[in-house]
């Protein structure tokens, strides 16, 4: 028998700040319905939201795939954006290429990727300039 899984997919549209966070909102609602601990929900929420907003700001949108299992959630954020030249640098807290107009909106503090890593149990990022970026995260329920 295959593992019970709730599969969800969200299209995150680029440069639409108003819609950023809606995938996170739906995932939170599902996790609450299946009784996941609130501290775990919060970790998922932060990681999802930061990932969504990165796709909006830096990649012109993308797709969030969320698989919820009994003991964990696996999130894949894939975009076909401009990619990241130096992933290691991008992971540095406070490092950001967000333009001024976006910082003025309160985004681009350079804490997104570091926080996604911090709040998840598994984190990986693959990126190729001109091709796109894929972030994979797993959060295990405590």
């Amino acid at each position, binding site marked *: 028998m295959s593992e019970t899984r709730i599969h969800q997919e969200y299209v995150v549209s680029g440069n639409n700040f108003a819609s950023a*966070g809606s995938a996170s909102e739906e995932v939170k609602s599902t996790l609450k319905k299946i009784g996941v601990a609130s501290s775990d929900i919060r970790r998922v929420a932060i990681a999802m939201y930061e990932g969504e907003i990165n796709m909006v700001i830096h990649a012109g949108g993308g797709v969030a795939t969320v698989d919820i299992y009994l003991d964990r959630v696996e999130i894949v954020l894939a975009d076909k954006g401009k990619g990241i030249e130096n992933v290691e640098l991008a992971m540095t807290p406070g490092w950001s290429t967000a333009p001024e107009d976006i910082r003025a909106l309160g985004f681009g503090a350079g804490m997104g990727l570091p926080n996604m890593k911090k709040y998840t149990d598994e984190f990986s990022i693959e990126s190729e300039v001109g091709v796109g970026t894929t972030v994979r995260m797993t959060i295990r329920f405590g």
Partner: protein
Amino acid sequence: MAERKIKCVLDEKALHTVMLDPDKCVGCVTCMKRCPTEAIRVRGGKASVAYERCIGCGECVRLCRHHAKLPAHDSWDTLGDFRYKIVLPPPSLYGQFNNLEDIDIVLNGLLAIGFDEVYEVGQAAEYVTDATKTLMQYGGIESPIISTACPAVVELIMMRYHNLAGHLLNTLAPVDAAAKLAREAAIARGIPAEDIGVYFISPCPAKVFALKMGFGVERPYVDRVLSVSDAYMRLVPAMAALTDIKKMSKMSSTGLSWGISRGEANATEELKTIAADGIEQCVAILEALEDGGMQDIKFIELNACVSGCVGGVMNVENPFVARSRLHYLTRKLKNAPNRMDDIGKTADYFLWEHDPTLKDVFKLDDNRLAAMAKMIEMDSIFETLPKVDCGLCGAPSCSAFAEDLVNGVIPHDTKCPRLGENKEGGK
């Protein structure tokens, strides 16, 4: 697999939040579609509330053009229940009267219509603000601190935002603080405890419910909760007939402004605060807070009603009119707020007496695997539905209809009436 049904029975909330006048309800689904917790269903052409999900915000009362939704409260006849009657007028009450120049006119009017003593909730709010400032420094509450003055918002957090519970300001609501102080003082003056009845004049069903059940308190401090409109009808002629106006008010502008959105947040004197009003905006703030936002903010005031408590659904006046009147009246009051020191109290006196409990009303099943199975079934049902959220089935959205099916709230063979196979829909 344990079947979990949404209760549609009369329990405490049925008695203390909103009731339906079935003769007036035409089943138009307006209230159902706008309920922030999706607590309403239309069955047999009439709106029914799953009270375990009701937060008492009064949105359905506000929206129903047929006046079929009635906020619950105690009747004016309950004034006969106690020998010594203490009344607690909330700041929002003063916004109900046209051309009011002096708050003392309202306070004297309250004595004229049968109360023996008045204690302003606004005065108690100032002590709560004072306690809040202490807690913000030493209280160990997670930042940003979320106000607990609006019980509709607090109820929503207890139901849906469990991971924000650590942010809640653990002070008594100003009305409870007022009741505690007034009762204590009356007893100290030798009035027998059993003779004392504390009455609140409520702007909303959320406060009626919170006070009846007691929130953060060992037992309710308020004995009866009356409605603003009942008081208004009696106050207007009594105020007009006053010949002698005693100086009574002790409240400053700080306490009065608690009746409007931003009042409490400004009173903290923190530089970075948020004050959101209207339940949709409150939800947006709570969602963003869960996602890790607003870390630079120190205090968040959330009012379910637009404009704050002047927007409460049991008031008589338009929220924006009432709000402008409160602004006008604040200029007439002293600026220096009442301090806990003045009455020899410390922050401890104003703290919750016990922590409120979280509520699990959205969980599909206590067993996570069973809940997941329901979720998967829900998703597959949802895929077959028109996804137009028309409300014809008696549920507020296609996904709520799917959820009702898997929860066994409606018979498992109920069809979407829009798909045409079965003209009955929900019953």
